[in-house]
């Protein structure tokens, strides 16, 4: 008989959380702390969603999305997780750009960028100050029609080198492009510029282990390999239960950390929703996906410090279509040194590129295998200039594609950065359509990335708490 992964699960909970990305984990933990009974269901065999890792022969551990979140993560981890988790966050000081237009190192904060923009790029100081202040002032309620391209054009007309410096890292971080609303850029960029780029010492596996321990202390019931097939609603459209691994589990509320469109169109089903809302959901654009190449050096071998994050491009100017193209000319290298996992002696490199699902989804098995090998070969060729003799020194090399991301996260089209801006409105309005059903996950670009996901988990947990708290008796 197959193992029952739901063994010991009760028939009823206050809240069921579907999916264990950082938003799902944080919502589950926040609600358990508030005193609710919470069941967390994850289809995969480990928690974390895109905050994940994998192990390979000879003890290599590869992180998927560890390098590069803003300082705000320290405060959010302290408030919504534990001091120990917050204390493990460390700065990555070597952010590097290598492209036909410029070659430079930076700590990626406002002070250093002001220096670079004035000294290297010859931008007047008052323009730089005005740009930073304008980005800083942006918030969700501002004009949503100005694009990032128009925003840059106001301050740096005709300067595609400046645009590249300002945009390339944000595209790496959240998949956004120059056509996305300027406010999404302003909010995310300002978050990074406050103090720079940070990572988690100990690796993603350690972070998720600590989060799991904290959830268990707060009483969250956690089950892996448990796929939610359906969210059950009654005639008034109220959430009644979820169906997972063929079993019904009753609940008062659901937080779905699954993809927004799948939550609404598949798990609930359009027959339970207003036509307009279904149309609006269908119109939400998913963000792009990624390819990655993972390279581990032989145990005992290492390389000199070449920076932590390196934005490499052979393309002239910032060109989003070129960045998505199978004909790769832009790559971001994350270099992992032994000190990121205290006690380890390993040097690893993860190369990331933005990618389109449709470029990978329809290949024959043979074409797919060959394309992956080509991705590996061109990546190693490129890496050779930073880590000489890499082919001989590599102990393990493998690649992932949008199809890989789809398989492990179940996100449509392997979307690795959630949805475009309009997804946020649909996510926020879902509880008005289906009372008791909430969505928390990467949406709208601003609620994406590690910090966005954690904070959105809290914001949604607050809404759930509001929904479940009976109104006070007025006398």
């Amino acid at each position, binding site marked *: 008989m197959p193992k029952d992964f739901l063994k010991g699960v009760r028939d009823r909970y206050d809240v069921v959380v579907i999916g264990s990305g950082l938003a799902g984990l944080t919502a589950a933990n926040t609600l358990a702390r*508030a*005193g609710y009974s919470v069941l967390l269901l994850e289809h995969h065999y480990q928690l974390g969603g895109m905050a994940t890792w994998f192990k390979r022969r000879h003890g290599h551990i590869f992180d998927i999305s560890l390098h590069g979140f803003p300082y705000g993560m320290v*405060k*959010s981890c302290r*408030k919504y997780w534990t001091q120990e988790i917050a204390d493990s966050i460390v700065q990555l000081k070597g952010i590097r750009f290598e492209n036909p237009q410029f070659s430079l190192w930076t700590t990626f904060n406002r002070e250093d960028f002001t220096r670079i923009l004035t000294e290297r790029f010859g931008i007047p100081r008052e323009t730089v100050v005005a740009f930073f202040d304008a980005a800083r002032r942006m918030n969700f309620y501002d004009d949503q029609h100005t694009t990032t391209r128009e925003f840059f054009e106001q301050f740096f007309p005709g300067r595609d080198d400046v645009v590249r410096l300002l945009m390339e890292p944000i595209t790496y971080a959240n998949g956004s492009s120059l056509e996305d609303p300027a406010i999404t850029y302003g909010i995310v960029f300002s978050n990074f510029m406050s103090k720079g780029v940070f990572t988690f010492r100990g690796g993603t596996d350690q972070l998720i282990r600590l989060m799991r321990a904290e959830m268990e202390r707060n009483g969250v019931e956690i089950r892996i390999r448990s796929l939610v097939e359906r969210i059950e609603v009654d005639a008034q459209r109220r959430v009644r239960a979820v169906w997972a691994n063929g079993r019904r589990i009753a609940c008062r509320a659901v937080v779905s950390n699954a993809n927004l469109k799948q939550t609404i169109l598949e798990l609930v089903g359009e027959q339970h929703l207003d036509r307009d809302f279904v149309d609006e959901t269908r119109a939400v654009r998913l963000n792009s996906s990624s390819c990655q190449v993972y390279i581990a050096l032989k145990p005992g071998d290492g390389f000199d410090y070449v920076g932590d994050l390196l934005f490499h491009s052979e393309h002239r100017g910032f060109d989003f279509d070129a960045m998505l193209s199978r004909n790769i000319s832009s790559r971001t290298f994350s270099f992992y040194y032994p000190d990121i996992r205290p006690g380890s002696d390993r040097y690893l490199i993860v190369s990331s590129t933005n990618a389109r699902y449709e470029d990978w989804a329809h290949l024959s098995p043979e074409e797919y295998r060959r394309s992956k090998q080509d991705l590996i070969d061109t990546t190693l060729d490129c890496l050779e200039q930073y880590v000489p003799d890499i082919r001989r020194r590599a102990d393990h090399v493998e690649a992932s594609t949008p199809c890989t991301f789809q398989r492990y996260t179940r996100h449509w089209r392997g979307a690795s950065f959630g949805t475009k801006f309009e997804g946020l409105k649909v996510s926020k309005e879902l509880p008005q359509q289906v009372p008791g059903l909430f969505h928390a996950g990467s949406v709208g670009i601003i609620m994406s990335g590690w910090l966005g996901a954690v*904070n959105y988990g*809290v*914001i949604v947990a*607050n809404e759930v*708490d*509001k929904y479940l*708290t*009976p*109104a*006070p008796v007025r*006398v």
Partner: protein
Amino acid sequence: MTRDQIRQVILDILAKIAPDEDLSNLKDDVPFSEQMELDSMDFLDIVMELRKGYRIQIPEEDYQHLTTMESTVTYLEPLLKDVESPAKPAG
């Protein structure tokens, strides 16, 4: 609760949200945000703590009343008038 007791409840919540801030010199008539580093997530935390501790529902349109200590206490006074003061800090 009296105004003084409500003030203490808010102080306890702020101390929990911003443990590194010195709150002993907090001025009641000056916005919180001008005296300490508080972002929108911190205000959300205040609202969540009040709901957890005292079952007070604060609708989003009322967040504007939570600007200074004085305005916050004035806003909460009628909502908390029949509630006992906590024996120890909320949480």
